[in-house]
Structures are given as C-alpha cells and as structure tokens.
C-alpha cells in the first residue's frame, strides 16, 4: 500500500443518511441552536416537488423564515449578494441548502457574507482566508454526484467581471448533511447517470492521483463499490429506493475522498470543457475518466489495477492477471458508459462528438478543442495529476475523447 510520508485528512460533517431522515432536520437545527433557517434552492428542485417533501417532513416544528429558490445552474456573485440581503432582512440564523453543487456553493457564499458581516466576498477568496466558524449550514443533496455536502470548497462566479473565485476553508464544511433517498428518486435517468459518473470520477481520481492517503483511500474504495453496484440499476429503475440510497452514500463517500485528496486531469479537462462549451460537469467526467486513467497508466497503473476489486468483485479480480487489471478497469468504465448510453435512450454521451444540448445541437464543435486545451493550462487541479500535460498533451487527449477512440499510447510522452 502506498504510504505518504505526510498527509492531512479532515471531515467534520455530521452525516445523517437513510430513507426517512429529513424528519431529523428540526433536531439537527436544535443541536446547532438554530431556529430560523433560510432555505436556499433552485427552480428545478422546487419544480420536482422536493421543497414540499422537506417542508412536510419538518412539519411546522421549525419556523422556515425564508425560501430563496432563484439559484442559477452556475453560482453567481450577484445572486449570492441579493440572497445574503434577504437573509439579513428576514432575520434568519441558519441555512438549509437543498440542491446540487451550485446551490451548495451559493449557500456557502451567503454564509460567508452574513457571518463575517462582509460586503465584499472577494476579500475571503483563496485558501484559509476565513478565521472562525460561520452560521449553521445543513446540506441536503438532491443529486448523487458532486459531494459538495462534505467538501470545504465553494466556487462562485462573478459573471460581470468574468472571474471565478474559489473559497477554501474548513469553516465552509457544512455542520451536517441530511442524505435522504427521497431527494434523488425523481432525478431523471440521464442526470442520474452523469452525476453518478461524477461521483465515480471523484473516487477514482482521489485513489489514483498524487495526494492520496490511507484514509481517503478507504472512502474512495467504498464509493467505487457502491457506484458499481447501483448506478446502472437506478438509471434503469429510478424508483429503486435502496439503489438511490446506495448512490447517495457513494457520492458522499467520494466527496470526502476527493475533498481531502483532490482530483487530477479528468477534472482539469472537464472544467475546461464546461467553461468553454457549457457541457454539464457529470457528462464531461463520464467521457474523460477512461482517458485520464490511460494517460497516467505508466505512473499509477498499479493503483488503477486495485480498483478492479471494488468494481468487478473478488472472482473477476482473482481471475484477471495482475498486469491486465488496470486495462480491465478502463474497459469496465467504458462498458459502464455504453450501458448508461443504452439505459438513457442515447442521452448519456460516450464521447464529446455525441454530446448534444436540449435542442439537439452539437455542444463541442471540433474547432473548440484548442480553446479547451488552452483553458486547461490555467486550472490548478493539474498539480495533483501524476503525469504532466502541456498544451499538446491536452489537445491530444481531447481529440481522442471527442472521437471516442482509445488513446494512442505511442503519443503519451514519458519523461
């Protein structure tokens, strides 16, 4: 087992998980001596009827002082500011974030402003700029993917100034997260598949990239196993409560893993495809994950190989010769993508050429690949990737991922 000479690991989020745990929200708020929460969510969550589910579960035992449902799909500084104003006007004392990554990030941003009584969020960007605990924040995820309910990061965009601000602090960890299977039951198959592959990419990159450690490994392995067992099942059968709970736990586990061990080139390129072409994060992760493993193979193939056990089970692992296990993992991930493609009637893209927007238009035109490679050079996640990538390397990987052919191993430059 790889043992780093030094590592840090921290996750102090209380996790409450089950089929009917939303009912625990009032008691959890009481423990935090909070009485007047503001709900932060988005229109999609409201439209799916999930706010009603939460409000019914709370059942009048807590005074929900404000409900803000206008969080955009991409966190936005203006919205953060206006919601912070609402929080103050209504005299709230805590936050319930109900949604996916953008809602969590927005709630964390609001929390910085209202706790620090700040006007300028910018002052707190970067690493460790926060010096004390914030107001109580409870995260209630509605996708099984991002893991933001257990991460110490918030990303908020200033669309006017074209800035993307990252906030990193242990104080941004929610106080608790309530992971209830009811919250993901209505997630459509394509979104289920994509967000589930995001969770898998967190587990796999945390396990195979440079900042791994034994504690994050344990979380990553457990997440990998749960995703392999449940993702296809819930995509085919969205009402499968057990499967949904399995995926929800997997996403939380993977979130803890990558929150401590970070991610690598799959995310570096994924962020870039997202910002240049607007492809949803999970869809990028599904496509890029096998390429990241192929590219880094000469550096971390022995780690990739170990993932065959949680992915395929003991008999397959034992029957596969050691030197073929890493390739078997990559083949399995490609097969997962194929099965998810079939299970979603072709909505789950297997490569970028195939990624379409709502109107059926191609999202990643081939001539944008150079822009994507250029953007990737500015993303910090690359520092945790085992092998280096320059512009040509990023472009080479993107060209393969665009067409959907495996990497030409002869083109991978080894130092």
């Amino acid at each position, binding site marked *: 087992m790889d043992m780093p000479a*030094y590592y840090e690991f921290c996750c102090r989020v209380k996790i409450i998980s089950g089929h009917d745990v939303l009912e625990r929200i009032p008691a959890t708020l009481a423990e935090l001596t909070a009485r007047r929460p503001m709900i932060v969510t988005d229109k999609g969550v409201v439209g799916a009827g999930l706010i009603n589910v939460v409000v019914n579960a709370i059942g009048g035992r807590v005074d929900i002082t404000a409900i803000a449902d206008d969080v955009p799909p991409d966190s936005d500084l203006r919205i953060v500011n206006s919601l912070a104003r609402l929080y103050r006007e209504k005299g709230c004392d805590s936050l319930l974030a109900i949604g996916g990554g953008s809602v969590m990030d927005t709630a964390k941003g609001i929390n910085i402003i209202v706790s620090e009584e700040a006007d300028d969020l910018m002052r707190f960007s970067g690493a460790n700029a926060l010096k004390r605990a914030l107001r109580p924040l409870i995260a209630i995820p509605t996708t099984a993917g991002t893991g933001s309910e257990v991460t110490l990061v918030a990303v908020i965009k200033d669309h006017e100034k074209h800035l993307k601000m990252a906030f990193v602090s242990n104080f941004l960890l929610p106080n608790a997260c309530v992971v209830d299977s009811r919250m993901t039951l209505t997630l459509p198959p394509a979104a289920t598949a994509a967000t589930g592959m995001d969770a898998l990419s967190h587990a796999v990159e945390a396990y195979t990239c440079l900042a791994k450690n034994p504690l994050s490994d344990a979380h990553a392995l457990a997440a990998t196993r749960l995703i392999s067992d449940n993702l296809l099942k819930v995509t085919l059968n969205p009402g499968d409560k057990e499967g949904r709970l399995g995926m929800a736990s997997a996403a939380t586990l993977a979130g803890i893993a990558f929150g401590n061990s970070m991610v690598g080139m799959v995310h570096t390129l994924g962020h870039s495809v997202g910002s240049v072409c607007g492809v949803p994060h999970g869809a990028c992760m599904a496509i890029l994950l096998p390429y990241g493993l192929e590219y880094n193979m000469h550096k971390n193939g022995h780690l990739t190989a170990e993932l065959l056990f949680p992915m395929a089970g003991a008999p397959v692992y034992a029957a596969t010769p050691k030197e073929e296990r890493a390739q078997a993992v990559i083949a399995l991930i490609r097969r997962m993508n194929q099965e998810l493609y079939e299970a979603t009637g072709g909505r789950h893209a297997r490569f970028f050429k195939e990624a379409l927007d709502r109107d059926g238009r191609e999202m990643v035109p081939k001539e944008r690949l150079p822009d994507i490679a250029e953007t990737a050079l500015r993303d910090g996640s690359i520092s945790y990737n085992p092998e280096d990538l320059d512009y040509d390397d990023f472009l080479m990987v993107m060209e393969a991922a665009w067409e959907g052919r495996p990497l030409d191993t002869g083109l991978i430059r080894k*130092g």
Partner: protein
Amino acid sequence: MKNFREVAAGKKSLKKDYVAVMMWFMGRAIQAAAAVDMAARKEFAGMPDGFTFALSVMPNGPHMIIGKDQRGFVRYKGWDPEGKKIDLDMKIKNIEAALLLFTFQESTTLATARNRLVVDGDVAHACAVVRILDIVEVYLLPKIIAKLAVKRYPGWSFRRKYLGRMLIYVRSIFGL
C-alpha cells in the same frame, strides 16, 4: 504569556540562509530564462505588465520576488517584499518544507500534494509560475536531480538544453 521565552533561532537561521541563497540564484535564473527561453517567455507573456509574484517561506521569509515591468521586461526584484505590491504570493508553509524543496529531497509536485504550498492570488498565474520553475530547474540542475524536481523530464534539443544552460548560468551570475 509574560513568561514566554523566545527560543533563539539557532539552526533555523542556517536553514534560512541556505534557502535564501537558493532563492536568490533561482530569482536571477528566472530573469535569465525569461530572456533566453521561448517557453518561459511565452508563460510570462500571459501575465499582465506590472505583474509581480513571489515565492515566500512562512511566516517571515525569505522571499523571492519577480516582477514584469511596464515594458514587459522580467526582473528579479530581490528578497524584500517591503513596499512592493505582490499580485501572487506562493507561500511555503514553513522553513523545513522549503529546505526539503531546495535540497531536492521533495519534488514541487509532492510538496503540492502534501499541502506544503499555499497560493495567495490567481490560480491560473500560479500554474504558469509552476511551469516556469520547472523550466528553470531543468536548466540549472543536472538531469539526475532535475528528474526528482519535475514531473516529466522534457526531451529538449541539445541546443536548447546546453546552450540555454550556459547562457542562463552566465546571465544569472552576472545578473543580466
């Protein structure tokens, strides 16, 4: 805290001196590389004129300050941050970590993975600085050591590597 006795720096100051000398030479080498090496020049071109960055050891130095002046020339601006506006500060958490780094016992990559660096400023520019440091290390160090410092030892042409190395050493020594 009245009875608190300040511990004399002792060995620490030796470590600090060593790191300070390495940073001084590195700073001059970066200035030289910006003039000599195409790839380094390209990385600097991506930074705005007047941009200043520093590599610092917490809590109070040493520092290595590099700035791009208003005409786009790259200059090593010494070790004293006093009175300088620093746009990007890459801080090594403590002198022990800096020593590991500058005695090449730990690669920049591993130092990052082990959370020994704190980036204060724009991450995109920090990525460029890491690439510049890699280039300079390949110029300055023999392959056997540089291989420990960078993730992937580059396959440069003979001309770039040896002529470049000579030019950069000469310029660094004379501060050109």
